[in-house]
């Protein structure tokens, strides 16, 4: 039905274009009109489509909440008494039955009988709202068309009107980016506030116990678990450090080699290959970490452990023999590999922004290339490189798939890279992908973590971009 409506609207739009054009020619009476006939046509199309679309968007946004409200208002008492989660499931099943489908769950006595009647009611309310929305939209289109056709005259500034609309649409598109930010902040803050209503922010930020699944003590807040996020921050930090320890030197040295030493052909080969490394999806890195790097490193450490056992380092040997697949080192290393092209291409850009005159100055003094790089280029590029590394840190903190697949779930407060740790992003995924109850602190904790993550990465990004921008201006 939506399709029929859309086709109807399209036909209506074409007709109004043709009509507007015709009318503009007919009414000109030999006077030179301000705008061309086609522009009058477009003017008519806007007059028809704008109100229709506005009504349609309003209807589709608000029909779902209105529908729920109407359903809740008329539902029998037994349904009212259900827990919110069960009630939602019942309503959903009623809709399915009403639309001629099967219920997903098996409902007990009072509810099973109610399903058909409630289903019919749901079906009718839905149909009513849908038809209402579409009809209102069509009426708006017709009224808009009438209004526009009355206004078409030779002295109508149709072009200016059309262009004003175009600019308006362009501006609206630009504001989508702002609205996205507003949406992110609003949704994170809203659910975080609900979370912090149940768990104190101090406990969240400074508590060292993280076990959202089970209650540790009876008097625990929300009696559903402990929400001290410090072990998550520590785990995130540890993995970030390992990743940067891999990515910073390798990325930086590749950038130096590519920008200062490599021949054109080498660059032409190596750069696209690094781009391939950058284009590999993170879930693939996660797979690589979990099934290739993890087992390989475990075997490596177990073997070293087996050599050490019985020797002077027996304790260490025993420990190494028990190392698991899921250690911070694995996730950190693979994340480091992922970040190499990122660090390398950013640093490459930064190094290229250092003016050639500084290089010439240094070479003319009789400096070798490496002396020039170490003593002139790197000091000159230092702020820019610092900015690039900060951006990489922000990426490492926000990266999800590698850690979800390779780091593990145990919230441990440790800086030992051979231990299993968990991170903020892993916990967000875990909390939101299990059985969900939307009002439990367990689920809402994901938004608290998300807000923390967003704020930290935002600060890092803003600082880093500032630094890089100031650095670039210096050499512009």
């Amino acid at each position, binding site marked *: 039905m939506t399709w029929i409506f859309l086709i109807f609207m399209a036909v209506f739009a074409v007709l109004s274009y043709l009509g507007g054009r015709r009318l503009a020619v007919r009414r000109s009476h030999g006077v030179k009109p301000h705008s061309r006939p086609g522009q009058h046509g477009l003017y008519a199309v806007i007059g028809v489509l704008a109100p229709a679309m506005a009504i349609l968007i309003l209807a589709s946004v608000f029909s779902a909440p209105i529908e729920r409200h109407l359903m809740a208002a008329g539902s029998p008492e037994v349904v009212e008494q259900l827990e919110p989660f069960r009630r939602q499931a019942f309503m959903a099943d009623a809709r399915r039955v009403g639309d001629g489908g099967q219920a997903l769950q098996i409902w007990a006595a009072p509810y099973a009988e109610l399903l058909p009647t409630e289903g019919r009611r749901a079906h009718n309310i839905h149909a009513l709202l849908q038809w209402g929305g579409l009809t209102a939209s069509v009426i708006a289109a017709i009224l808009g068309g009438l209004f526009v056709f009355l206004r078409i005259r030779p002295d109508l500034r149709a072009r200016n009107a059309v262009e004003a609309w175009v600019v308006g649409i362009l501006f609206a598109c630009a504001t989508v980016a702002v609205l996205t930010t507003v949406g992110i902040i609003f949704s994170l803050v809203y659910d975080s506030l609900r979370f912090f209503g149940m768990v104190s922010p101090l406990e969240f930020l400074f508590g060292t116990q993280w076990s959202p699944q089970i209650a540790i003590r009876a008097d625990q807040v929300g009696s559903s678990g402990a929400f001290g996020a410090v072990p998550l921050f520590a785990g995130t930090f540890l993995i970030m450090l390992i990743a940067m320890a891999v990515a910073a030197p390798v990325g930086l040295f590749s950038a130096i080699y590519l920008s200062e030493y490599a021949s054109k052909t080498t660059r032409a080969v190596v750069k696209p290959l690094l781009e391939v490394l950058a284009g590999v999806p993170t879930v693939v890195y996660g797979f690589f970490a979990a099934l290739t790097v993890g087992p390989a490193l475990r075997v490596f450490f177990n073997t070293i452990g087996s050599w050490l056992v019985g020797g002077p380092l027996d304790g260490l040997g025993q420990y190494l023999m028990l190392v698991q697949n899921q250690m911070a080192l694995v996730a950190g290393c693979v994340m480091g590999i992922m970040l190499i092209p990122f660090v390398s291409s950013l640093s490459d850009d930064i190094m290229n922004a250092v003016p050639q005159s*500084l290089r*010439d100055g*240094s070479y003319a*003094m*009789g400096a070798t290339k490496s002396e020039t790089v170490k003593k002139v280029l790197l*000091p000159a590029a230092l702020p820019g490189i610092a900015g690039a590394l900060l951006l990489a840190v922000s990426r490492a903190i926000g990266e999800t798939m590698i850690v979800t697949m390779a780091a593990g779930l145990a919230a441990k407060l440790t800086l030992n890279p051979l231990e299993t740790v968990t991170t903020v992003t892993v916990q967000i995924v875990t909390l939101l992908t299990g059985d969900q109850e939307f009002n439990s602190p367990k689920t809402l904790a994901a938004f608290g973590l998300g807000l923390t993550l967003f704020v930290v990465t935002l600060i890092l990004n803003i600082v880093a971009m500032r630094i890089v921008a100031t650095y670039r201006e210096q050499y512009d």
Partner: protein
Amino acid sequence: MNTKLIRTPIAYGPEGQPTGAGAEHSRSVAPTVGDSARAGLGPIKISAKNIKVFYGEKQALHGVSLDIPDKAVTALIGPSGCGKSTFLRTLNRMNDTVPGARVEGRIEMDGEDINDKKVDPVLLRAQVGMVFQKPNPFPKSIFENVAYGPKIHGLASSKSELEDIVQSALKRAGLWDEVADRLHAPGTGLSGGQQQRLVIARAIAVEPEVILMDEPCSALDPIATAKIEELIDELRERYCIVIVTHSMAQAARVSQRTAFFHMGNIVETGDTEDIFTNPRERRTLDYITGRFG
């Protein structure tokens, strides 16, 4: 300033062997081997023979020969794109750092071919300093800028020796009085003229024998330019200086010898005064009188 514009004529006593058929005078038509040492000018320091430079497919110099005397300023003039900067950059092998550049011909410095495989460009550049068009102090302190060369070449064995080197280089560059109290301020914070003198100090701190200058005043205001020109005139007593300039007035003011480049060739070489008062070639006359440029 005006006192500098017309230089007191230098008495040239042709002492060396006369070269070329009609070269009884000090100037000659390119390509030529210039006359040798005269009073006031040192012996020939650099002798370039039939230099050709290619950038990829493009040929920038078509066989240039020039003798450059020691303890004098030699100016290279000519319209832009004529190859004068390219020639300058062959003298310390800076073209080595340009990908795709190729140099042919022989450049003798004190009788030794600097393009020889045995000659190390790093050592050569310690002997031949260079100053660029735009002042390019490193983003370091004034002290570190001047100490850069001595440090990389290991010229100072102690900290105090390094300080002495820096101080004397800054003094010789005429900058010491202006920066003595802020040696550890960043070099990029100086004015344009000061920066250019800092860069000259940086170059002379490694005790070079030759200083190449690539339009050193083109980015400076007239007062700063005057100071640099004064400095060049002082430095002439110790060094062999080659300066590329697009300003004929500057060439007339600071140099003793002038070579006129056009389209990758040297049109005319000679004593500066002769070139400007009595050019031999029509093209030189046209250029110095501003008919093209």
